[in-house]
């Protein structure tokens, strides 16, 4: 048997893609690309994480991300414990740390957390010895979404180096955009963002991206167009005008798509507001890789669980 080992040292947590090296991102994507085979088999389960306990704590509603993480853990044979804000005592005044101390008493191996406040996963990662995976913290980061996006891009483009990715929408308040910007720039891709001034202010350049205000200015050169979800109900005062204006100025339709590269990839973190971010014929069209994103999400989360979950006093020898 070969002695090939990981190229990068093991980390305890995945809190965000900022500061994660190109080698490590490559390792995660490579692992995800291999681990995908499990999902295509008849028996879609491997014993890798047998006996491990993974707790998923979602303090914000999200059915899909949560299901994806749960399934990823189950396919690796981990025991999964779900925990959601609605059913917990957080609404009765218990602090996040109190809740975490309770979870800690169950001796988990990993906590997957989504939380409306930036830095909540970091706080737990500092305080406890189990692994923490950030499944979205406020407007900060959503690393697994960016990793699945990058895996999807790499599948089609071969490499991310030198590719141009356009991100359209509310970049300022998007954790998906932030993680993608950190990851993609690390991998050598060029990121151009476009959106209204309230969503794509010029200060975004500090993140290493180019800022444009018309979707047509970013479409022509882009290998990938990533449309962000518009969540009007969540936006603050006076961030956005009528939805119709947004759709007209920043929505992607077939007409606009025809001005893009013929092999452009259309991506969206879902769920799509059809008719707002993109028209149905684009969302379901041949350039859309939205469903590949979903299946790669499962693979990326399996890969991360495999790479993160820690050592124990196991019995050593192999051969």
């Amino acid at each position, binding site marked *: 048997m070969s002695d090939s080992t990981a190229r990068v040292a093991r980390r305890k947590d995945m809190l965000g893609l*900022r500061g994660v090296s190109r080698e490590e991102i490559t390792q995660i994507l490579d692992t995800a690309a291999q681990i995908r085979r499990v999902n295509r088999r008849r028996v879609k389960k491997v014993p890798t994480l047998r006996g491990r306990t993974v707790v998923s704590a979602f303090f914000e509603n999200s059915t899909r991300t949560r299901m994806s993480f749960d399934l990823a853990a189950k396919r690796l044979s981990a025991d999964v414990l779900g925990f959601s804000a609605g059913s917990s005592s957080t609404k009765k005044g218990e*602090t*996040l*740390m109190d809740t975490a101390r309770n979870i800690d008493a169950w001796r988990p191996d990993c906590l997957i957390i989504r*939380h409306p*406040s*930036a*830095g*909540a996963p*970091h*706080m737990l990662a*500092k305080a406890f010895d189990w692994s923490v995976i950030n499944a979205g*913290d*406020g*407007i*900060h*980061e959503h690393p697994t979404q960016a990793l699945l996006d990058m895996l999807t891009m790499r599948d089609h483009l071969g490499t991310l180096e030198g590719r141009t990715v356009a991100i359209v929408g509310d970049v*300022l308040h998007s*954790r998906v955009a*932030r993680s993608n910007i950190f990851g993609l720039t690390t991998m050598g891709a060029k990121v151009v963002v476009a959106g209204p001034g309230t969503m794509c202010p010029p*200060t*975004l350049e*500090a*993140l290493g991206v180019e800022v444009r205000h018309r979707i047509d200015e970013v479409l022509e050169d882009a290998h990938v167009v990533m449309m962000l979800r518009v969540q009007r109900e969540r936006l*603050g005062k006076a961030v956005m005008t009528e939805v119709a204006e947004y759709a007209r100025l920043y929505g992607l339709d077939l007409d606009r798509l025809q001005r893009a590269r013929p092999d452009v990839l259309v991506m969206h973190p879902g769920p799509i507001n059809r008719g707002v971010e993109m028209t149905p014929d684009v969302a379901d069209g041949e350039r859309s890789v939205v469903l590949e994103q979903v299946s790669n999400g499962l693979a990326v989360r399996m890969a991360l669980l495999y790479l993160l979950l820690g050592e124990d006093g196991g019995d050593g020898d192999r051969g």
Partner: protein
Amino acid sequence: MATAVEQAFRICGARVICPFSGRDEVRDLHVRGGVLCADAGPDACVIDADGLAILPGFVDLSAHLGDPGYLWRETLVTGSRAGAAGGFTTVVASPDTDPVIDRGPLLANLEQRAAAVSGARVRFAGALTERLAGMELAEIGCMVDAGAAAISDGGRAVGDALVLRRALEYAQPFGVPVILRPAEPELEKDGVVHEGPVALRIGLRGLPSASEEMGTGRAVALARLTRARVHLHGISTAQAVRQVRVAQEQGLDVSCGIPARNLILVDEDVARSQYDTSLRLLPPLRTGTDREALLQAVRDGVAMVTAGHVPLSRVEKEHEFERSAPGGAGLESAFAATLTALDGDLALVAEALSTRPASVLGERAALSEGCRADLVLVDPLAETCIGAPQFSMGVNEPLSGRTLRGAVKATMVAGRWAFNTLLP
């Protein structure tokens, strides 16, 4: 305590620094009957202060003492002790209490209770508007008569320009300083850290410098209009100190105080700390450029330094960054932070922490014969490793873990030792 006032002390061998009189020399300091005198007499208790420095007692113009209503954060007793341990001889308690200090009788009652504290002298700022709501004026006149040292809306910024104008007009004839936090409340909603590249990167919503700039601009313009005495508490940006500098050059009675920690820490420290909630502050930590401008303002006499004391309990700080309460304890670390930031310049520290804030209260912080014996003995060469506050009930020390220059050894309030590590 009454007997303590009659006690006499001869403090020997210290470098005595009094920016007010311009004297800075090694000499003995005599105290009798609560005042500085030429000779304390043969029965005076002799204190060897060789190698130490004596500065006029520090004065803080706006500290949260939590009393009444937030007794888990601080009380008059603990706040007074924390002040003395930090070298403060006078601490003005801000009116952000429950109930708000917005009436004469409440303030008079607090004055009575404060007479019994054993640490720093505690005085009170009465509210500018009722319940700090920024709508109706509080009982400013009655509170001044009851002994209010200042009028202030504490940590709240008055959003309505007309209310602010009227408040300044109303307070002006009473001669008390009006302490304001310069901000534009609508621009600060949801903000938790300085708005800039760091906030963008770590995904926290920003408090733009523009808010402080607008608040300062409005306060300066209204000070010009009403001729009120305005003190801006918690200045943190280069733009705001520039505006204060211009206002002072034009002869307006506008002063400002900078939290000592803002002379040391910057917004990048929030990122480095991985969302340490003790760095959730108001005003927030700003950029390195801001810090340089703040330091220059202190050196030039434009600004003074404040402890920015907002003690909070574990329950209020042990939260997600955005949900934790803003504020940091500061009374016990302000001196070391200021001395470190000002490169050991004790005379400048005395101006920043003693002379200038005392003058806002209309007092002279001097070490001359006949003056009230409010003084602090410090060891300028000591290294202090800052930890959690020892006397304050607050757990939130933003400078925790840092080693700073200088330590407070003893504090004397009107001839009485309010804090002393030198006596056997």
